């Protein structure tokens, strides 16, 4: 058994990737309107720097980073700003967003999207470029990449892991990117090696995606770098792509509780993020588009689409031939950790890896817990979800706080395996929220 995997828990899910895994990434026709939220990343929402009536070009900065964790936001089309107001947001209910009417001229902002004079690989220059171009982690959380690449000087980071695990069912966006843009992703590694002197680079891919493993292995010799770059075949198991699990599977290092990967010398970057870093540095292209898998039993022709940030859900569905059946549930992201949507009037943001449209929602009624212990056995973080939920429901803060709810990675396995259909992870999220609220109030 040379397939690597994480330490404990985890489950095998039906991966449902067959539908889209062999479909090349397609470009979606430019939408007539885009709504670009100013909150698409981990930190504070960006400050709008355009107003109604302004004309913007593709790649022009429209939202400026605020605070340490902030990130810039750019226009994904050229045209007129027709509104700066609150609009529906796929994660938050509403957020300040900029609505732009596309003039379909596809004019790029000066100096962007061109392969000019991009070679003096200086660390500061690269970091600034990544910040300027609004690159954030594309795995979902939207952590600003320039922050992740700037660990405190006291740390001893020696390992870079490229996350190509994509362990959520249905999603094939990263997989397609790895097959179609293998070279660019590898060039992204070269760029990151200039940012930080990593000693080893690993690319983690689940075993069933062997085509991506082969693509990297055959392209590797042409990437001439001084440090070893290894492709690692991972066991197909959920949640293999969770940062801490991936680190353990590949390096056998354990991230201590409440610590971050750089504390044990590792930085993890998603393959999509790496591709964006490549485009950002080599072409000076801001993060204005991403690959999204559109799948689910209501989609007439499932696809892997390259979508402009701010494209409305209804435009994406239209680009996939519309709906065959009336849906009951629409999810942004994967089925295990994705976020259900209220309407078709929501925009794709930087962290949207998939759009899944289902005819049926399980809509389960939870029964009494029978204490079978499956949530404990399968928890990849080694928690006792049922205890946290039991005490949370009894509003016994002192007790549930003792069961380490903050160590929960919210993978959803506890709720998935529960025979009584209790949504444990939902309660744990609320418990975490309560703990954080009390900390702030202290």
């Amino acid at each position, binding site marked *: 058994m040379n397939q690597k995997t994480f330490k404990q828990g985890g489950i095998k899910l039906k991966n449902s990737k067959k539908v889209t895994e062999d479909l090349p990434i397609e470009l979606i026709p430019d939408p007539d309107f885009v709504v670009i939220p100013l909150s698409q990343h981990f930190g504070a929402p960006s400050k709008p720097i355009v107003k109604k009536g302004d004309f913007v070009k593709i790649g022009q900065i429209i939202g400026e980073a605020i605070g340490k964790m902030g990130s810039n936001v750019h226009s994904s089309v050229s045209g007129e700003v027709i509104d700066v107001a609150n609009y529906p947001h796929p994660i938050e209910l509403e957020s300040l967003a900029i609505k732009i009417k596309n003039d379909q001229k596809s004019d790029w902002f000066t100096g962007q999207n061109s392969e000019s004079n991009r070679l003096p690989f200086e660390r500061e220059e690269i970091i600034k470029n990544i910040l300027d171009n609004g690159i954030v982690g594309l795995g979902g959380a939207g952590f600003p990449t320039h922050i992740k690449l700037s660990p405190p000087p006291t740390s001893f980071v020696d390992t870079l892991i490229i996350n190509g695990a994509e362990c959520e069912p249905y999603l094939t966006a990263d997989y397609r990117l790895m097959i179609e843009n293998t070279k660019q992703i590898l060039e992204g590694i070269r760029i990151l090696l200039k940012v930080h002197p990593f000693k080893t680079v690993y690319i983690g891919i689940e075993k069933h995606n062997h085509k991506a493993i082969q693509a990297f292995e055959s392209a590797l010799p042409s990437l001439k770098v001084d440090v070893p770059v290894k492709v690692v075949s991972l066991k197909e198991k959920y949640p293999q792509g969770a940062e801490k699990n991936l680190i353990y599977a590949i390096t056998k290092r354990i991230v201590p509780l409440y610590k971050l990967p750089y504390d044990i010398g590792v930085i993890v970057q998603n393959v999509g993020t790496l591709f964006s870093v490549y485009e950002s540095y080599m072409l000076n292209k801001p993060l204005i588009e991403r690959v999204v898998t559109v799948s689910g039993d209501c989609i007439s022709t499932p696809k892997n689409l390259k979508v402009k940030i701010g494209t409305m859900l209804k435009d994406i569905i239209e680009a996939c031939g519309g709906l065959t059946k009336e849906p009951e549930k629409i999810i942004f992201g994967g089925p295990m950790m994705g976020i259900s949507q209220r309407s078709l009037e929501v925009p794709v943001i930087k962290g949207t890896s998939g759009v899944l449209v289902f005819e049926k929602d399980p809509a389960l009624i939870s029964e009494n817990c029978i204490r079978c212990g499956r949530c404990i056995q399968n928890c990849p973080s080694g928690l006792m979800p049922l205890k946290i939920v039991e005490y949370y429901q009894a509003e016994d803060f002192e007790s549930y706080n003792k069961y380490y709810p903050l160590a929960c990675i919210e993978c959803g396995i506890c709720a998935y395996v529960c*025979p009584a259909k209790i949504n444990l*992870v939902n309660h744990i999220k609320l418990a975490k929220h309560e703990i954080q609220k009390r900390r702030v109030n202290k």
Partner: protein
Amino acid sequence: MKLLHVSGSPHIRSALSTKIIMNSVTIALLPLVIVSVAVYEWNHIIPILLIGSFTAVISEGIFQKMFHLKLSYFDGSAFLTGLLLALTLGPRTPLWMPMIGSVVAIFSKQVFGGLGQNPFNPALIGRAVLLLSWPIESTTWIQPIKVLTTATPLSVYKMNEFGTVGLQKVFDTLGGTPSLAYKNLFLGFRSGSIGEVWIPALLIGFIFLVVRKIVSLQATVSFLITVIVLSYLFKLDILLMLMSGGILFAAFFMVTDYVTSPLLPGSQIIYGVGIGLINMLIRKYSGMPEGTTFAILIMNLISPLLDFKIKNPTGFVKEKSKQ
């Protein structure tokens, strides 16, 4: 367009449900039911089992209706409780006994808040009440096939102070030679409860549950090992101790109950050891020949305490004491 459903993740769930788990255990008991109907008088066994299980379902329904609770009497758990209770009774038990036992069993579960909330195994509460209230009716045993009223091998052994004379008496009633006696014990040619009759059927049912990952092994194995070790220390006949009485039935179908056993594997091992210990102490030193029922009920009571430990999450680092 219809309104879309909005809910927290995950948006997919496994097919496993409480009902499937309960029904799997019922299916695991089927070989036992079939064998017992075949070797005992079917006109006694079938009514006992049916009355036991359906009384449980009906009384659960009545209870839930009476107290305006969510109706869940059809989820298979009440049926299973009734069936388990009926299987612990003797093959000539009068029919009012499984009826009363099932009502008591369901009551003991519902007063604490229903499924998942009961501290005691309901079927065993039912059996304990019957055993203490009607000791004569509860301990009338017959041999299969021959339909002779006899004492159980265990009580024969015990009445002769567990000595070699007693062991010889047991062997005499079970075929003469030790090897024949053990074979008859294994294949059920001896008196006992309905559910104890044919050990291969018990094993088939248990293996089915283990293979389907419905039950875990820790408590069962530690219980049986404790029985073996203590039989050896008490200088008792190990095979006779294991195969007579309710030990195997309890080890496979009662000790593995989720609700009344601890959650963590380590605690489950302690739980099994505790049951084995109490069980053997009752067999050896008390006035009763058999003590599995009470051993499990006592450990049920302790079970939540065994889960005192908070599991350390991945990446847990022991805090260094401040100096």
